[in-house]
């Protein structure tokens, strides 16, 4: 009997080839003169979050206090990555430092878009779904901002930035 998606949540796979494949997809898109590559990568992340969240979701409501731990939990479960999140509610910014980003490892001189743009699309969608699951009086959501640093473009680590929206 084939795997179900629920089986696949807890199993682990080596991400090397898929990480490389993302950059070959970017090259293919460039060759096809696709202009909105960044948006497409984020859309991919959004779709992944929509499906993944049906099989796993943090069991904690999202609040100012739980934001950091929930983000850590999402990265740990999906990307098997230990990250350092920094939350600044005054500036409404969430900065995530990932030294072992599953989508960026090598520097590609011909590439100017980081693979972790996928995560820029994934995390805000995941947070939105969590908010729907556990509605709160004050809703905290995220909006993609930018990949500030990435190993793919020659940095030593990846730094993803998100805009925090409190309603």
């Amino acid at each position, binding site marked *: 009997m084939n795997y179900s998606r629920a089986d696949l949540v807890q199993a682990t796979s080596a991400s090397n080839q898929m990480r490389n494949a993302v950059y070959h997809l970017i090259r*293919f898109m460039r060759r096809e003169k696709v202009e909105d590559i960044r948006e497409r990568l984020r859309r991919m992340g959004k779709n992944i979050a929509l499906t993944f969240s049906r099989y796993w979701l943090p069991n904690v409501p999202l609040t100012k206090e739980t934001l950091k731990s929930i983000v850590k939990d999402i990265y*740990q479960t999906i990307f098997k990555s230990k990250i350092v999140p920094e939350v600044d509610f005054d500036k409404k910014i969430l900065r995530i430092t990932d030294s072992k980003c*599953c989508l960026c490892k090598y520097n590609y001189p011909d590439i100017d878009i980081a693979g972790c743009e996928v995560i820029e699309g994934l995390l805000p969608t995941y947070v939105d779904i969590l908010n729907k699951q556990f509605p709160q009086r004050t809703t905290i959501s995220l909006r993609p901002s930018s990949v500030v640093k990435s190993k793919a473009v020659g940095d030593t680590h990846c730094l993803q930035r998100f805009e925090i929206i409190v309603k």
Partner: protein
Amino acid sequence: MGFLTWIIKKIGKTIGRNTSSLFYALLYREIFKEIYEITDNVEKSIEIMRYVGGEASLESLKRQTAILKFLPGEPDRVLKYFEVIWTIVFGMPLGDYEMEETKIEGAPYPEIRLKIKQCPVCGGYGSDKEDTVRFDKMKKDIDGMACGFIGMIEKVINYLLALKNNDFRMKIKEEKCFAKGDDILQFKCDIVSLEDLRLEIPSVEISEDTELQIAAYDLMLEEGPQKESILDKIRQKIDLDRIEEFIDGPLDSVKSRLSNLIRDKMHMEPEEFFDYFTNYERDLFKIAGYLGVHLLNEYGGLVEKFLSNNTFAKVAGYIFKQIQETYKIFIPLDVIDDYHQLFVEFLRNLAPEEMVEQFELLTAIEAADLIFEGAQGALEDLGINFEELKENIWEELKRQPPPEDEIGLAAEEIKGKGHTLIQIFQEVLMLINSILSLPVRMILAREHESIKTVIESTTSGGDVLESIKTHADKIFEYLEEMRA
């Protein structure tokens, strides 16, 4: 699965970066969807996904060339390591699978089909609304959802074949796909010569659309390095397949080599060859001893040269007789018996059953005596006249004439003195022999048991390998936990 295969799989999984398998599958799906959206053509999307998968794999392969060189370099043998390749590419266990070979007349290699029971990229596909590409509506004769995955695997195998300067390449086609509604994932592997592959290219009309197809052929036709280092040459001789074979069954490995040798040189099956010696089992031992000495002499004819001197021949003859008579004192019976058993095991499935039974009936001592008898025959050929020799070397010494300076003494007195001295010397030596036999037997028995224990535990799935596997498994688990 062999021990080395297991360890390579574990290392491969631990070294690589891991993600949730569902993230892997969904990222794969999204890449395909993007390609499909750009091309708006299923067949072209499959072709591009294959190409993307192949390129992604090639990138990793170029970084891991040293490890790959340990895999065998023949297309049919490399498929024995499909499980390792799958683990390297995907990082998930392959699970149950079957390999089916179909012989094709005139072709050097069979057509191979791999039937895989679980596919991680198709797992659960179709159950969510984001699964927008309908693979079940696709034509049956084109690849399915695992096309990118096939691109990766095909690239690993062909890169390896190129690396080993093999003149064949493998073309893999996805015949059955879960996402298409089949109940298994089935790959058809065609092994084609480089020559045939080169002939296929001109038939492809070069256009913008076929640009990727041409590039894919370029990758397939990639040739291995022209210069080989000494390490490469060693790796060609001792690839993983051969090491594994030896660790898993050293006796089987030797058996298979002997079988091939008999088939190649004698043009007959091993059983047929051994059948000639049925009812002549005792003679076979003699032949072994006889050939053993002659083989020793093959190295520059040293034995023959040494024995051409009459005195040396006599000394060697006496030493041989001494060994023949005393080996039972020095070598414990259990050790001889173990080697006899090993020989019987070696012949099992190689020689006729009746012959193996006859060998089992012979005692170990009888067998050893027959080997000595054969060796004696060979030594006779090479110059030792055993008929001339006395019962032992002391009798020979007794025959020597008295030295010249002693001529003049009474003949009887000399004879009596000499005889007594020789008898004392002989008894002293026999005493030393007996005293030494005990520690020698102990040393031999201990060494034999140590080697036997190690071999038994490494070759018959014994406790040592199992224990190594258990503890190594835990180390890999902890490493994964630390990395997570």
